[in-house]
């Protein structure tokens, strides 16, 4: 019963054990209730400080973390840093040291360079939450996706999941693949050959297949995840035109006839309608895109609670029976 999550940081899904992942998801379920109450706030992190350090624009993820912090009564401070100023002079580590001087309990970092959270974690006393680093990982997105899947499918084990799109540059795909295969799902990925390296199966030990056609990946799938085409990352150089992408790699209603009868469709947002996903699918009954958003707050509350909640003393406390004052 006493599953412990005793980490200082959440840097990626890859290093988490299946038990740790399940523990986070279970905790998130309890927090989902808080957001459904009339008073959507608990005093748990009163007096704690959470810094949202975003080197990359992201209204959605930043807002989600901010709401999560506030519902836990933590003080949330948003800092938008431009990574161009970093290359000019101040190093990432300078920035980190400056923030440490404010004694935050948690730093949530989004950065366009893979590994920036890991570098921060090495020198900061605060817990570091990776809110997306380059093409590496986006652990809270994978956790909220898993929470959504669990809610609709009852579990993860044994599910068939298709992930479609720019796999090469996608941190969402990586985190999801690590999480889903760790919990016993099988994952098929597909997209343009330039964006789906043939050796991508090596990412995990087992449970991952690379398909040439998206139809083959979707065949029999219980979950279809569509990735966003990130125009700002010059992915356009990887395929001839948006029109060709939409025709050959976009998800259309007829694709869903290949999937299992009660398949669900997910997208991390923001969507490019008519490119990677048709509006009929996005707005259809199979789409859980809005559920994903509300589960995001619950997952982020759970993470902030687990990282910034307790003391750092460690030690084995039988947490469910230990009473206050005893």
């Amino acid at each position, binding site marked *: 019963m006493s599953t412990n999550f005793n980490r200082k940081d959440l840097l990626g899904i890859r290093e988490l054990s299946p038990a740790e992942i399940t523990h986070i998801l279970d905790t998130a379920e309890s927090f989902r209730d808080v957001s459904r109450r009339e008073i959507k706030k608990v005093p748990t992190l009163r007096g704690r400080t959470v810094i949202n350090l975003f080197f990359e624009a992201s209204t959605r993820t930043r807002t989600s973390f901010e709401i999560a912090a506030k519902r836990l009564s933590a003080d949330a401070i948003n800092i938008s840093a431009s990574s161009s100023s970093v*290359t000019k002079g101040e*190093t*990432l580590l300078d920035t980190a040291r400056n923030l440490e001087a404010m004694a935050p309990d948690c730093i949530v970092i989004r*950065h366009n*360079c*893979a590994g920036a959270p890991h570098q921060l974690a090495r020198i900061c006393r605060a817990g570091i939450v990776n809110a997306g680093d380059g093409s*590496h990982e986006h652990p809270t997105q994978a956790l909220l996706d898993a929470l959504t899947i669990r809610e609709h499918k009852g579990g993860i084990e044994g599910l068939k999941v298709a992930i479609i799109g720019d796999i090469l540059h996608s941190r969402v795909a990586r985190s999801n693949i690590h999480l889903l295969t760790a919990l016993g799902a099988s994952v098929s990925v597909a997209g343009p050959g330039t964006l789906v390296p043939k050796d991508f199966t*090596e*990412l995990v030990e087992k449970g991952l297949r690379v398909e040439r056609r998206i139809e083959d990946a979707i065949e029999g799938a219980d979950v279809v995840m569509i990735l966003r085409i990130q125009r700002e990352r010059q992915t356009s150089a990887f395929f001839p035109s948006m029109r060709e992408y939409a025709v050959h790699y976009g998800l259309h209603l007829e694709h869903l006839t290949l999937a299992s009868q009660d398949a669900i469709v997910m997208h991390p947002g923001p969507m490019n309608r008519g490119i990677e996903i048709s509006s009929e699918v996005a707005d259809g009954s199979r789409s859980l895109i809005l559920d994903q958003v509300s589960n995001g707050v619950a997952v982020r509350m759970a993470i902030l609670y687990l990282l910034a909640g307790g003391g750092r003393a460690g030690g084995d406390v039988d947490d469910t029976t230990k009473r206050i004052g005893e």
Partner: protein
Amino acid sequence: MRLLIKGGYLIDPTVGENAGRDLLIEKGRVAAVLKPGEDAPEDAQVFDATGLVVAPGFIDMHVHLREPGQEYKETIETGARAAVAGGWTSVCAMPNTDPVNDNPAVTRFIIEQAERAHLANVFPIGAITKASGGAELAEMGEMKRAGIVAVSDDGRPVPSSGMMRRAMEYARGFDLVVVDHCEERSLVAGGVMHEGRMSLILGLRGMPAAAEEIDAIRDCLLAELTGARVHLAHVSTRGAIEAVRRAKHKGLDVTCEVAPHHWALTDEVVEGYDTNTKMNPPLRSREHVYAVLEGLRDGTIDAIATDHAPHHADEKALEYDHAPFGVTGLETGVALALDRLVHEGVIGLERLVELCSVNPARIFRLADRGTLKQGAIGDVTILDPDLSWTFDAAKSKSRSRNTPFDGWQFRGAVVATIVAGRIVYEHPELKQIRERNEANKREEIEAKR
């Protein structure tokens, strides 16, 4: 000035005889190689080398000393100090300074600075093209006259095959070897580590092995076309080593070197995003490391060169994507060779001396070096192959600290470095080392050969 190195075990493949020998150096040159007990002049300064290996001075064919232009990273003096602490009596300085060493004035400046430092010998390498821009040939003849020993645009490849052909043909006229950094840039675009399983996992842009191999194969073809002498810098992939192997079979004058980090580390250490694991060519996957070891064993690889590339801590404190390529290596290279190659049974001590001294001298035509025959220059590297020690980057002689080997433990160390008969480096604990070394040491070395 006479120096007698007494009681050591001499390993000199140019003589072919390895045995206990005393070495007498007079006026900077080897005056005599004496059998134990043979008479030596009584007034000579004596260096007690009992139980130690005495080898012709090690020559690092590939270092970046950053002067002129980037003295905050390294100077010729600090670089030379690190060199002798690492057992290198000579280092060959790549031309990617600021300004680039593409003219005799810069060449002369480097040589003068090295003379002022008066530690290791510094041999400049000139640029192949002006400003290493890949467009126009640099003044190879004038630089040769000023003292360069080779030409290279290292740090960058020569992108155009046509330009490379012309460079090889022209360099041939001055008997200069063309040293190429093999990298097909269009395949590398933005890459920061070896492309493979680890780059996929870490989400970092990859540099495929094919990028190095395409250029290595091209250079071998051009060596055949032009008849030039070609040396491939820091080979790191199975395909590049295979290309050199084939070229040698064909009888072409193609040689290559390998850097210690390419046999000591794999791309798996990039996990954690420590920027001291970022260099170019990048750390490769296991299969390539095995190919490097095979190349060292079978003779395909001619030389060990550190590719010592100092960078300031602030530059390395950036994100993995933004940090510069390169690690320091002068003070750890020989130890990595002893620990990981000799003690692991990949090569013997004699082959180590070929890789670190004999072959570099031959490839760069360094007259009277890479040997301790009578009359040769008195550059000597003295090793204790069994001394266990720990590298502490904080105590490095280099101005920079960007090493992935901080805190590593090694078996095998450099205990003294002698340049032209002058002791320029002595291990701080030499006295204790001598006390520890008993007579049976000699037998151990014999067995290791």
